[in-house]
């Protein structure tokens, strides 16, 4: 038991501690799916909610999970990426960090000539596809790989001069928190409820239509002839009953 726990911990450290973004995406998607499943169950087993409302609430809740995952990728992740990128590139900065950049501007000139974006999905995909074809890789590299300058990749930053790392990461974490929270508020609390309501309403309308059609088909359909009903029908037609006697021939 202890061994498997240690293996799991080591696995988490090796595979996910350095790439939290991907892990958050996967666990977030699983989490939303689970949450949606629980809330769908809550609606299904709630006897106080009428069927007509359930026709809206169930598809609304299912849409909630799908829209949440899509909105996380399209909005929250992009907000977060934009915010942190601004800090990493020095476009959004504080006075102490800016002073550090001006003071060491010579050492940042070289950074311009590097490809640093190893976290970029396109870049990762590109590296995987052209792993063994170095000629194609060299030709296509400028089209597939984004060139991004990152303050943290400079040697002067790595050497922790003027205690800049503390200032930089405190600011970076603040922007990281704000950008992801604002992105999540926009996607989860504004975009998702609007889209899930549109989907839920459409589904409710089509289910009501389906129910009505089903009911009308029952009303106008010819009654099914069973052996029992046929026998009853025949006996009614062939029986000679008199109103005064119960005797049948």
């Amino acid at each position, binding site marked *: 038991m202890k061994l498997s726990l240690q293996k799991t911990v080591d696995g988490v450290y090796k595979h996910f501690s350095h790439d939290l973004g991907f892990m958050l995406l996967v666990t977030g998607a699983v989490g939303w799916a689970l949450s949606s499943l*629980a809330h769908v169950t809550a609606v299904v087993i709630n006897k106080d909610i009428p069927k007509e409302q359930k026709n809206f609430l169930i598809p609304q809740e299912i849409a909630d999970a799908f829209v949440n995952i899509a909105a996380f990728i399209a909005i929250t992740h992009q907000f977060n990426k934009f915010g942190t990128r601004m800090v990493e590139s020095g476009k959004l900065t504080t006075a102490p960090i800016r002073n550090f950049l001006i003071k060491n501007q010579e050492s940042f000139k070289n950074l311009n000539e590097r490809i640093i974006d190893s976290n970029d999905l396109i870049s990762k995909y590109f590296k995987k596809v052209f792993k063994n074809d170095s000629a194609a890789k060299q030709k296509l590299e400028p089209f597939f790989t984004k060139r991004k300058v990152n303050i943290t990749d400079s040697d002067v930053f790595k050497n922790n001069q003027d205690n800049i790392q503390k200032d930089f990461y405190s600011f970076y974490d603040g922007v990281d928190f704000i950008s992801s*929270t604002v992105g999540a508020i926009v996607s989860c609390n504004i975009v998702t409820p609007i889209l899930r309501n549109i989907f839920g309403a459409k589904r409710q309308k089509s289910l009501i239509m389906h129910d009505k059609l089903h009911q009308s088909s029952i009303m106008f359909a010819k009654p099914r002839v069973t052996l029992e009903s046929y026998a009853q029908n025949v006996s009614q037609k062939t029986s000679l009953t008199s109103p005064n006697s119960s005797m049948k021939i």
Partner: protein
Amino acid sequence: MPIKKINSVNTDAPSFGALPKPFVIKRAKTIDILEKMGKFSSPQQRLFLGVTALMTQPFIDLNNKSVDEKTRVVSCARTIAKNFIGTIVGITVRELCIKAIDFCTEVDAKKLKDTKYFKFKTALLPSNVKFKEVTRELVKHRQALGTFIALGAMLFTNFAIDLPLTKWMTNLLVKKIEKGAQKKLEKQKQDKLQGGGK
């Protein structure tokens, strides 16, 4: 992070040599607030999300004109219940997970001197890396573990806590809203009758 050198120089890339006009925050108070927010973690984020969800989602549901009024009311009640319960349970689970992980990834030598629960105190530390202090790497490891454990905890809390509480609160809110609407109707009728009598 692997760094690869290329032969050509991209002139579009932001250059620190030329120092393009960046947005510089100079106010010490603003920097201080941002740095404090950087120390916030998932429980605080869940709180922000929960509060804003309660401020926006019920109104979006109430103004959903593509469904009838009864559906709007039930949908709004369920959204309030879901977000209220979800926020409380979410914050509690996250806080507990963080506390448990912090306890099980202890690196402070002073605290480790106390041999009580020593096995638990280092149970969630990676075996191949020795941490002597709380570094950025250790914080990231704690966050990664926290995300995993919170997901596992959610499996339990979603069905055992969120589900029954949301159901109970939805019914309570729907009944209250319907009672309020009925009282309003009765009052309007009475007012009309009184107005007609006069």
